[in-house]
């Protein structure tokens, strides 16, 4: 994610880029705590929007939908870190992870363990679309669902490339969708958006 030169031609300063070690060091020295909602995105430490009840309830709903459906086939991780690179670590709402859970005892999941990642977007919609989705595509997360609470649809992104996801589908109330990695798992959009 890069700063643009503004129309006035003001040159941007070189903001210090942090890596994951420094990010965890800050946690260690108490600059933020594990309850702080911050993410590391391309070396920049960004505050996440405060969690609204509407958003939180979507996460609980998604967890409820996926846990029984996935069983042992995937680990359902809610609001936990996902390590994309040395300089990017995000906190997606939901991530389906390759089992077993033990795999993640020593290290956070990385893109090759994450068949599906889900972000719930209300106030953060522009940010999710313009910052997080391209980030996930660049790091080859195979599939992302954006639960769009503003326009009441689930946006399904597949076929990541460095330029972004190539394939996008919209699913509305009444539709059913399946993760590409688990085509037999049926998720009703109604259940998620309700």
């Amino acid at each position, binding site marked *: *994610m890069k700063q643009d030169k503004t129309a006035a*031609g*003001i*040159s*941007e*300063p*070189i*903001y*210090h880029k942090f890596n994951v070690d*420094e990010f965890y*060091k*800050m946690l*260690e*020295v*108490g*600059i*933020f705590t594990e309850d702080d909602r*911050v993410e590391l995105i391309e070396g*920049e*430490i*960004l*505050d996440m*929007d405060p969690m609204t009840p509407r958003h939180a309830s979507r996460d609980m709903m998604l967890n409820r939908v996926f846990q029984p459906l996935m069983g042992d086939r995937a680990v359902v991780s809610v609001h936990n870190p996902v390590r994309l690179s040395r300089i990017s670590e995000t906190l997606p709402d939901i991530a389906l992870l390759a089992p077993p859970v033990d795999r993640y005892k020593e290290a956070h999941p990385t893109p090759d363990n994450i068949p599906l990642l889900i972000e719930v977007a209300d106030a953060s*919609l*522009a*940010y999710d*679309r*313009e*910052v997080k*989705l*391209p980030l996930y*595509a660049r790091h080859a997360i195979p599939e992302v669902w954006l639960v769009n609470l503003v326009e009441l649809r689930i*946006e399904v992104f597949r076929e990541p490339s460095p*330029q*972004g*996801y190539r394939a*996008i589908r*919209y699913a509305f109330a009444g539709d059913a969708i399946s993760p590409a990695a688990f085509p037999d798992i049926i998720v009703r959009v109604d259940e998620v958006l309700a």
Partner: protein
Amino acid sequence: MTTGAQVAPPAQVAHKKFSADEFHKMIEGGMFIEDDRVELLDGRIVDMTPPGSGHAGCVKGLNRTFAVRVGDRPILSVQDPLSLDPFSEPQPDFALLVPRSDIYRSNHPRAHEVLLVVEVADSSVRWDRETKIPLYARHGIQEAWLVNLVDQHIEVYREPSIKGYKSIRHAFVGDTVSPLAFPDIILKVEEILG
């Protein structure tokens, strides 16, 4: 990457703002290796570009010139921090400070203790002019000089206000400059530019 209708304003990105205390904790935690020159400006940690020999020589020259000419009247500060507000701790190239018996051992100088601040700019002219100089103005530092090595002149800023310095003079080769605090000290521009 577009996903249908574009929402007009770009995504808001909220960078975590760091306080000077947090900044110090990071430094004490060993986060910035010795060669990592960083300063804190409005809560953002900014990398300082490693100086070229032209820049470094100019700063040494300023130090020597002032040491010889103003003696003990101010305290000379070379690339040391100023404590401007809880979120800003810049490191100007050179500054003249109000004399203090502890020589600022107990805390970094505050804005009202700064008689003159000098930034030497080779590649960073715009950045210094548009970000650092206004920062000094906002905190009421009575005079700032921007030694512009690129255009070979000195920009003299006076009359600080919240909106920036109200008075700007350019001094060229052949002209002289004098600090407001020491009007008897008359320096030739070419002496400073080197």
